[in-house]
């Protein structure tokens, strides 16, 4: 009986800590983790896993590899969090790591055409497509149209030059400010604006025939 009560108490304490962590901002969660609260790391993972996965996936176009890279991001965060400059934004730091890993992945692919080919193949396999995209309430022809459009959008993004695509995704998908993008991509503000402007124009130009 006492054992059950103790277990319940521990579980209630755990739930309270989790709720407490959820209410904190990133900086406070980082501080809690550095103070020895291991559950704080899980909170950071929960907050960033989907965002980072989408960012990396849109950048490299390979879902499986994107998951691996996001895991690598979290491992690096876990290892080096004590070195993180807490006067800066945690999200910017995490995105910088993710951006660099994605960049390395693309660089490796360009050196190894076989990998590139396999990746391109993978991108067009049905099972790689996110299932939740399908809206089961829509009519079949609507579903087909939506799916087709999504494929075109993804292909169009993939056609953008890497440095344009990176900036474009960070701004349009992640909603980062110009300043944050400049920090993540290690460019100056002018370069970010210029790349974003070009990326938007190129993207709109490529996709226009399919939309009109």
């Amino acid at each position, binding site marked *: 009986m006492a054992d059950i009560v103790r277990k319940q108490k521990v579980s209630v304490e755990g739930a309270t800590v989790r709720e407490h962590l959820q209410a904190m901002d990133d900086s406070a969660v980082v501080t809690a983790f550095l103070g020895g609260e291991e559950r704080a790391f899980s909170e950071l993972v929960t907050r960033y896993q989907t965002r980072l996965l989408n960012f990396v996936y849109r950048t490299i176009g390979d879902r499986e590899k994107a998951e691996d890279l996001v*895991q690598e991001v979290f491992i690096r965060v876990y290892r080096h969090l004590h070195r993180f400059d807490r006067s800066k934004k945690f999200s910017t730091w995490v995105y910088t790591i993710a951006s660099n890993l994605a960049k390395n992945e693309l660089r490796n692919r360009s050196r190894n055409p076989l990998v590139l080919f396999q990746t391109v193949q993978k991108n067009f396999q049905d099972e790689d497509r996110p299932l*939740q995209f399908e809206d089961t309430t829509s009519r079949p022809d609507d579903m087909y149209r939506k799916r087709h459009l999504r494929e075109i*959008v993804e292909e169009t*993004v993939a056609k953008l030059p890497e440095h344009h695509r990176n900036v474009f995704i960070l701004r349009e998908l992640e909603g980062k400010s110009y300043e944050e993008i400049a920090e993540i991509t290690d460019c100056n503000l002018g370069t970010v*604006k210029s790349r974003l*402007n070009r990326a*938007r124009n190129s993207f709109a130009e490529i996709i226009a025939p399919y*939309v009109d």
Partner: protein
Amino acid sequence: MDCREFCDQHLAYVDDTLAGIELVRMQRHLAECQSCAKHDAKIRRALLLFRNLPSIEPSADFSRRLEARLRSSQRDNLFVSTQRNLRRSAIAATIASAIMLGYIGTTLFHSDAPRDLVMPPVVATVPEPEFTPITTSTPAIVASVSAGLTIWPAALFAEQVPVRFAHSSLELANYTR
């Protein structure tokens, strides 16, 4: 405002970061220029499409795999740090041994070096006694030496005891030597 200026400012216009006056100028140009209005619509429509791309979710075993990788990474870290410490200890021991061997070698094979330490000669002086020697008769002292104890005839220096008693051992040492 001309079309070139409109295109230059379009990024900020779409992102709503233009100041009030600039915003009004852009809107006025849009109303006047059909080509720029078309360009603006094209960009906004494309962005809308991209922003509405469905979000993908991590796979079901993402957390489990991450946990496993973190655990493995921790083990690797521990192993690496242990290896590093061992390597450091080995390096330190090697350096210490090398220094010791070097020192021993230098000491043994360096013939010019003096083997013994040369210290300055010790100069010791016996302090001058500040007291007047005890005047006592020799037979009395000899008698006390044979007994193994300093048995001073009290009658001889009953008057001088407070002053001379402290020096009795010195006197005795002189006699017994």
